[in-house]
């Protein structure tokens, strides 16, 4: 299927249009702030300052960004194969179960650098397992992956409530959470990096899973653009028919892609569970699975874009928290609105401003939109 839109230069497609969409989303969010009776410009400034104003704030921003790199990659990988994995929330939740089991089993006996790799594998395996059933159902029974992954989000939350109220709850405790992990399952913080630059950051939850996230983002880039499987994935996403005629197995691609996607979502759990809270509780995912959708859309499915978009959303989370201290009427729910608006304008309405941009570019330089040299066409 060819896109029903004319071509634009790459930097417009991947840079300008997302930025326009983002700006519109923020403008509408500003209207909401006006409706609440506050000054949108002051609110915006408070957010920027809250996110980047000091070393501590930047560390928090990057801590939140870590969540969204993982979940954004999870959504993006699936999208490349034309699958909409809306179940990142549940996969991350179950991934946390894997992390928790490993941490509880090992934390008293080995140092963190032994626990960490095993926990990575466990989180990925649990997340992938949770994506496996929807993947199987999509590949072999044709059930719509969006619906099954939504259902699995709810099943995951029931499963976790059960696990944290039963098998994983320490004796004599009332709260639905595991016992706190010992030092053997606590990831080192990255505060010293900021201290190198002269900022004095004593307490921030930023930990080495941020670095893991960056490495994983690079690996995903390799996978999608530099391997045979990545090529098959993208072919399926662009045109299932082409993939079929080329002899690629649709079922195999769907299942492997979803397993990777689920594994990425599951790995998100390392950041809060081993990096910050040092236990498994009921709220460590906190909507990050859904933010991944916005991040993947803004990042245009490219790992580099996703890292940037994740930092942007990390800044929104951190800045939004600071904002809610300054303007009590604007609670952290403001982030949820912005998130929704970003998903709306950058996702569902991504082509809304395209005709205008196209007309503009066509009149400025016809060649850039592929109009002038008629021979070189062939889209």
């Amino acid at each position: 299927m060819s896109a029903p839109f004319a071509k634009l230069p790459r930097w417009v497609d991947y840079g300008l249009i997302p930025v326009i969409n983002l700006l519109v989303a923020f403008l509408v969010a500003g209207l909401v702030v006006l409706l609440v009776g506050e000054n949108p410009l002051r609110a915006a400034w408070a957010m920027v300052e809250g996110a980047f104003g000091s070393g501590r704030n930047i560390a928090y921003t990057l801590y939140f960004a870590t969540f969204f790199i993982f979940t954004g990659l999870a959504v993006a990988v699936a999208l490349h194969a034309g699958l909409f994995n809306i179940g990142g929330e549940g996969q991350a939740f179950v991934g946390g179960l894997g992390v928790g089991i490993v941490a509880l089993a090992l934390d008293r006996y080995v140092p963190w650098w032994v626990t960490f790799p095993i926990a990575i594998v466990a989180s990925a395996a649990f997340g992938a397992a949770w994506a496996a059933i929807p993947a199987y159902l999509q590949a072999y029974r044709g059930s719509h992956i969006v619906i099954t992954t939504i259902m699995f989000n709810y099943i995951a939350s029931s499963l976790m409530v059960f696990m944290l109220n039963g098998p994983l709850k320490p004796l004599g405790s009332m709260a639905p959470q595991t016992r706190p992990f010992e030092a053997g399952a606590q990831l080192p913080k990255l505060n010293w990096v900021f201290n190198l630059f002269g900022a004095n950051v004593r307490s921030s939850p930023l930990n080495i899973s941020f670095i893991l996230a960056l490495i994983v983002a690079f690996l995903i880039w390799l996978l999608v653009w530099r391997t045979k499987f990545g090529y098959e994935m993208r072919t399926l996403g662009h045109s299932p028919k082409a993939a079929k005629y080329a002899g690629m197995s649709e079922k195999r691609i769907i299942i492997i892609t979803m397993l990777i996607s689920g594994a990425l979502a599951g790995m998100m759990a390392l950041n809060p569970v081993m990096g910050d809270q040092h236990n498994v509780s009921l709220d460590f995912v906190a909507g990050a699975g859904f933010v991944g959708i916005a991040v993947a859309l803004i990042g245009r499915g490219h790992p580099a874009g996703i890292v940037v978009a994740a930092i942007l959303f990390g800044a929104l989370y951190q800045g939004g928290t600071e904002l809610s201290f300054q303007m009590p009427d604007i609670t952290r729910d403001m982030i949820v609105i912005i998130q929704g608006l970003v998903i709306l304008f950058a996702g569902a309405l991504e082509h809304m401003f395209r005709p205008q941009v196209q007309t503009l570019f066509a009149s400025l330089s016809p060649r850039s939109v592929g109009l002038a040299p008629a021979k070189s066409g062939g889209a």
Partner: protein
Amino acid sequence: MDLFETLVQVFGSTIRVSVPLLLACLAGLYSERSGVFDIGLEGKMLAGAFAGAAAAAVFHSAWLGLGVGVLVSTALSLVHGFASITHRGNQIVSGVAINFIAAGSTVILGQAWFHQGGRTPALTPVERFEPIKLPFADALSGVPVIGPIYTQLLSGQSLITYIAFLMVPVTWWVLYRTRFGLRLRAVGENPAAVDTAGISVAWLRYRAVICTGILCGVAGCYLSMAQGAGFVKDMTAGRGYIALAALIFAKWRPVPAMFACLLFGFLDAAAIRWQSQLAQIVPVQVIQALPYILTVVLLAGFIGKAIPPRAGGVPYVKER
């Protein structure tokens, strides 16, 4: 207490729990039958619940509240339509966006306007849809078997409950016995054919989406103005998704939709009523997850096959 009386009570709460599910489920039916997937039922219900309760509290009128709730929900529906029909955007993405916008703005606006931590003020009886007592309810209450059924199940429900169950035959009639319904079903299966017949695909789908908005608004108002007395943060609590599950369970048909909603409602009511007894057999979470598990099993095609409208989720591009 004897078994019969307990059963009547459980069925009573089944009906009350099912009403918002049923309204949202029928709402989704219009949209999805026309080929527009809608996972934003949850958000529209939530926005309707908030707008309804807020307007009712300000204007001191339940009817005005219902009107505003329906308007707001329909407006969100039109946003979904604008994105997915006019701009041919991804319908899933648009639905997710609407859920977020509703979840965030209800709390922010509620806090800014009423300063009660995101709640709306508690509604007085005039501002709510109170239970309606059918004639002879008191007189018949002493009669065995019929008495409890009549007084506790049929009578004493709110107006919206009767509307919800009335909407089942109405929807059936609209879908299968009117020209609009025929075209609606056709546009969900094969929009090109409808277009060839000279009927506007976009306008037809917009009308379907408006029906969805109205019913979602009523569902939301039921939550905040009939079942509850005011809006509470995140009061839909996933009902929009259960309604979606029920819609699939019913294979996108109105009468089975009612039974699916009643079944899911019954699971909920039974889990609450027999919590302590059930806990000894299965964990209560299993029963809570049952609607979702059942839907997945159905989707997998192990008990019958749920086949969605063929053109569902695909934006219509007119041939040039």
